[in-house]
């Protein structure tokens, strides 16, 4: 099976969907002539012209709203945020308009739109550019929130997101663009939103993580396997809707659960996951559910401090050992 980068997978997903549906267009800063700040939209302008690949000025609130208005009357916009940190100046559009128009109009209008772009800390870009905002968006009814961890998921989920009739917040891993995965060359590769995936099977403890943290968990699982500890790594892939059945069935099996997220601890999405797991798996739990998160601070710049703040493999290993009462 062909191996593809996460970046190319996203690019192909958009290209295929734009080929398929003339109502799909992409709008954002530097998406056209610059070929994308992270080159995710590379080549799309040449293929689809300025009518469908639209360079927007620095006005996130403005072009997010333009996308919503266009979606209300039948187009299917993809709005790229150069990074999701900039979505905060458009959050009124996403939360007050995109998420609510279907409800406010009692179903007369819906908003088939994708807000996509990279999220999560990159490397040494400071506190304003190093944030995981999925918990903000996952809080909002009326939105779907997608967090792909692999090129395969990125492609299949983005295609589904573009075809979805609801506003989808699609947060890509800023440090995952160069990662590769086997991706079938299939124009109908659709991964349903709301279906999680078991990235590694194991029987002793369930690790729940999304986006980049899936990779950290897989690394930790490898390390723990040397000690005979078999971790099951479960990737919900979409936070809203959340595949609670998959998470619960895994924890039912293992009896132990560690949730790993790169966001902040307070009111982070992992807290919701922990609630759902304890609700559904109370009698199967052998230890309190553990969470591994970033430290509760704005991201520092210095490399050593930045590493210190974010969840590392060793932190996951330590949490697993705690739920197994090994320390």
């Amino acid at each position, binding site marked *: 099976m062909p191996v593809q980068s996460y970046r190319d997978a996203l690019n192909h997903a958009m290209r295929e969907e734009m080929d398929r549906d003339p109502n799909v267009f992409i709008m954002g800063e530097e998406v056209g002539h610059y070929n994308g700040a992270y080159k995710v939209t590379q080549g799309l302008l040449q293929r689809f012209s300025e009518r469908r690949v639209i360079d927007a000025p620095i006005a996130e609130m403005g072009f997010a709203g333009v996308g919503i208005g266009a979606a209300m009357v039948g187009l299917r916009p993809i709005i790229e945020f150069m990074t999701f940190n900039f979505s905060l100046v458009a959050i009124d559009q996403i939360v007050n308009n995109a998420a609510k128009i279907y409800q406010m109009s009692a179903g007369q209008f819906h908003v088939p739109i994708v807000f996509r772009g990279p999220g999560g800390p990159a490397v040494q870009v400071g506190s304003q550019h190093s944030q995981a905002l999925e918990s903000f968006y996952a809080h909002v009814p009326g939105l779907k929130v997608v967090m792909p961890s692999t090129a395969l998921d990125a492609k299949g989920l983005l295609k589904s997101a573009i075809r979805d009739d609801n506003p989808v917040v699609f947060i890509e891993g800023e440090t995952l663009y160069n990662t590769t995965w086997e991706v079938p060359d299939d124009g109908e590769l659709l991964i349903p939103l709301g279906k999680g995936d078991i990235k590694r099977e194991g*029987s*002793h403890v369930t690790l729940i993580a999304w986006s980049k943290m899936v990779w950290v968990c897989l690394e930790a699982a490898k390390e723990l*396997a*040397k*000690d*005979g*500890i*078999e971790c099951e790594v479960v990737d919900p892939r979409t936070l809203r809707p959340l595949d609670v059945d998959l998470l619960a069935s895994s924890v039912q099996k293992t*009896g132990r659960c560690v949730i790993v997220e790169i966001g902040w601890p307070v009111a982070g999405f992992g807290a919701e996951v922990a609630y759902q797991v304890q609700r559904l798996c*109370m*009698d*199967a*739990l*052998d*230890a309190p559910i553990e969470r591994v998160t970033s430290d509760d601070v704005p991201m520092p710049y210095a490399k050593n401090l930045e590493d210190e703040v974010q969840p590392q493999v060793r932190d996951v290993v330590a949490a697993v*050992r705690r739920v*197994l*009462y*090994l*320390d």
Partner: protein
Amino acid sequence: MAQIIGLPKLSPTMEEGVLVKWNKKEGDKVSPGDLIAEVETDKANMDFNIEDDGVLLKFLVKEGDTVKLGAPVAIIGKAGEDVSALVAQAGSAPKAEAAKPAATPEVAPAAKPDAAPAAKPAAAPAPKPQPAQQKSAAAPPPAAAGGKLLASPLAKSLAIELGVDLRTIQGSGPGGRIVERDVRRATGNGHTDPSTAPAAQAAPAADDAAFDEPKTLVRAPRALANLPALSDHDYEDVPASNMRKRIAQRLTEAKRDVPHFYLQRSIDAAPLLAFRARLNELLGDRGPRVAEPSSASSPLKVSVNDLVVKAVALALRRVPECNASWEGDAIRRYTRVHVGIAVAIEDGLVTPVVRDADAKGIGAIAGEVRDLADRAKKRALKGHEITGSTFTVSNLGMLGIERFTAILNPPEAGILAVGAVLDVPVVQNGQVVAGKRMTVSMSCDHRVIDGALGARWLGVFADLIEKPESLAL
């Protein structure tokens, strides 16, 4: 670079296995695909083929040891490589954290597999209450702490399942919380989670003071079985094999979860016996021989059971509603007919499968059944040969059983229990005459098969048996 080889997953449901036999010796050179050992899983004896290149430097388990999935079994590398570090690592496995910071040399030898019959659960001494690092080691038993019993939810449900009195257990978790491993230790069933066995292994290296804890708090039935002198009971606990546990679990689930009902019918077996006699006469010595050399001496004969299997398959083809299973929100109707045959083997039973039995000739079925049964008794069946049946036949007629009912083999919706052919008086044209009758009982999953449907199927089946020539059509 030498590396540890773990026990691979050899069946879909396997969680541990018994290393029955090493097919290689330490020092042997191996290539990917080489058979290095045989492993008894919950389903069958499986081949353990290695996926690496190199020399088997060290075996970490002995024949007869129970090993959990993924646990170290051997070290492979280049000839002459020093494996002591890896041996230590494998031996101290999940206790590695304790050994890591200082790489304490005292830990390694204690955990060496050579020194470790301790690694073998059956021979393990009663595990000590958690020593050394357990902050709670000195805590009183939870029951004593103001009558409040601290146990994890899993420990509680497990205790009910295993019939363990939590008040008799010392908890090893924080604040004396009883956790899964404590319950499992109390039953000697300690190998299903990694926090149990390795912790017990590491125990000798830990604080000796902990050894003074009274041993009576922890009971290990396996150990008792080996040391009857310690027992004040007039019974013996025979450890259940993987297969026994699996059978217990599956049949309990089936009888509990599937709404069974039963249909019985007495069938005139005289034509069937006559038909069988003619077939075997025709076969003579020319019958197909079973591939297995051991049975080459006896030519194949068609049995009543072979004919029953064929009749079952044809009946399923004619009444496909019974070739089905319950899927929660749908009835799955199978397009192919695979008949499972319950075969008794030492310590249990297996159900090998005759695939597409409706399309196979009677001779072919007879040959296949003989082969499958022979290999089942030797535990030489492959995983795919014991899965995928859509209906099962269980025959105790050869053991003189007149009639019985069987428990369904999920997800199948039907199983046919076949009794012996008996000489009985029958009424024919108002006269009592000698006849031959066979009684069959069909167990049905009522979610899939209703009474009338089951009766229809049984009617078709009876018709085929009573007109056996139709089996050859």
